[in-house]
């Protein structure tokens, strides 16, 4: 059953991807239009879609930093300690 569902979705990959874009847009729109900001802790969070920007920037930041850090010599061959 799980396999069938996954295959069903994979066969319609373009549609799935498009639905995801719609979902992203909906989440941001909901935040802008309907969600009360009274629980926000800082003024920064009152920017519409603040957490979307935060999530996206943080994701790229972590990847870029990790890759840079890894290539500073931290990542090395697997038998490093054997020799």
């Amino acid at each position, binding site marked *: 059953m*799980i396999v069938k569902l996954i295959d069903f979705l994979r066969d319609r990959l373009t549609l799935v991807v498009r639905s995801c874009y719609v*979902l992203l847009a909906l989440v941001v729109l909901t935040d802008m239009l309907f969600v009360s900001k009274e629980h926000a*802790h800082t003024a920064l969070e009152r920017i519409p879609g603040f957490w979307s920007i*935060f999530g996206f920037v943080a994701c*790229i930041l972590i990847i870029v930093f990790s*890759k840079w850090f890894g290539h500073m010599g*931290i990542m090395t061959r697997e038998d490093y300690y054997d020799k």
Partner: protein
Amino acid sequence: MISNVWIHPSLILVLGALLLPLIPRQIRKAWLVAIPVLTFLDILSMQGQNGIYGVLHFMEFPLTFGRVDGLSMVFAYIMALMCIIGTIYGLHVEEEAQHIAAWLYVAGSLGVIFCADYLVLFLFWELMAFSSVFLVWFRRRKESLASGYRYLLVHTAGGLMLLAGFVLRYKVVGNFDFNLIAPGPMGIDSWLIMAGFMLNAAVPPLHAWLPDAYSEATVTGAVFMCAFTTKTAVYALARGFAGTEILVPLGTCMALYGVVYAFLQNDSRKLLAYHVVSQVGYMVAGVGIGTQLAINGACAHAFAHILYKGLLFMGCGSVLQMTGTSKFTELGGLYKKMPRTFVLTLIGGLSISAFPLFSGFVSKAMIVSAGFEAHNYTAAFLLTLASVGTFQSTTLKIPYYIWFGKSNCSEETLNKAVDPPLNMQTAMVIAAALCVFIGCYTPYLYNMLPYPEIAAAYDPYTAYHISETMQILLFTAFGFFLVLKRITPHETISLDLDWFYRKGGRAFLWIASKPVQLIDNLVGELYRLIGLLPLMFTARFCSWFDWHGIDGIVDGTARTVRGTGAVFRRFQSGQLQYNILFAVTIVAAVLLIYVFA
């Protein structure tokens, strides 16, 4: 606790473990399930029975084995529950010693949680270290052996720090009571104790033992290890050091450190191990913030973490068990082969990433909220940043590179890959169900926390919080899939601070084999030249003198006597006529001399 008799839960596990080899094979599986369940029931029976139990006296020291209160109960509850799940997961393991090691390890953890003085704490603390190392060694690879020894050495060093702290503290306060030390003036004793706890909580720079050992442990061993050592240390920190400010930056750094290293990993179990570091960072930060909400958050997160991290280790462990590898570069595209493992691991991933309706959502938020409420914005924002990394690695990277993506599987791997045996699946289903249950029905967890009224007033399901989380997570996923092609894992390892003692060990060996050996040789040569040679010369001279001097005199006397004897012998040939001849000759000679002289 049955009526008024308090039974230490560790006692049940220790006895159960010791009797295990005597149990007939037919009922062994039943025994394996019954003992953890009995332990769990024992702890359930203690609910609402707060107090001090099991006090023994050793010399002038009172040893308190049972302190039952809100903080110890929530940890004991989840430890015993995880023991049931972990044992079910390992039910197929035939080797009794593995079960014995795991149960003794859990017994150590429960002992630490219930004790109220440092002497008992130390006893159980060491029991944990010395039993858990076998869970690494039982994998029986060359690497596991080395890794286990490193684990043991690091924990022995941590244990010594603790012991030194306890002794110094006894000098200062005159007792071994294990209570809140900080905030307050902290002497060297308090710092040593805190460092000992932090080592077990894997706070950088004392963390490198964790990914090193957990990725080398047996499949079932890692499931146990990821739950007990670090969370017992979180308990100890919450008990002794709640509100110590230094723990907030340390915990925050830890959360980010784990995320960055996790991202670099090619081995899925090592990735998960780094996320233990990251997630424990939230708890350490929560302990450091120290408000009632934060302590609740730390406990809740420890509770949720044990379940979802156990689930994730079970999922990746199943892949390792069935295919023989846990590396992304040797896996991929397995969703047709191991679909159930995929779904269950995904539930673990969604829980650790604090997806709404999953357990992490209701626990992690408490710590972050406590950070915001304490106006510690830097920590709160950085912890939110770390949660992005968690989602990336655990929920996106692991499922994508094991079950989807490009298949790097060898034909052998593909043939072997199927969903694991029923007992392993059952354990995963229990853990997954609990993850969802905790996320959906918050009072279950919140009523168990040390400050239940504060927890009851906290509602994670506000529109704002849901919206915030959904935006962060979905846009993280968006970012991840945008750069997917650029982050393909490679066959690498990442150097961490264990480099210092692994290479340091080599350096020590080199120093021992090269310079020290050289000096040793020089001293040997010198000794030979100025000690041995004159000695030999003197000895030779003595020998010569003895032979030619002393023996010469003695032997000379002997030779003279012998020579004289030989001369006389010639005259005494034994023939009578010669004797008469000599006698007559001598008499004649004497007469002639007498007559003519």
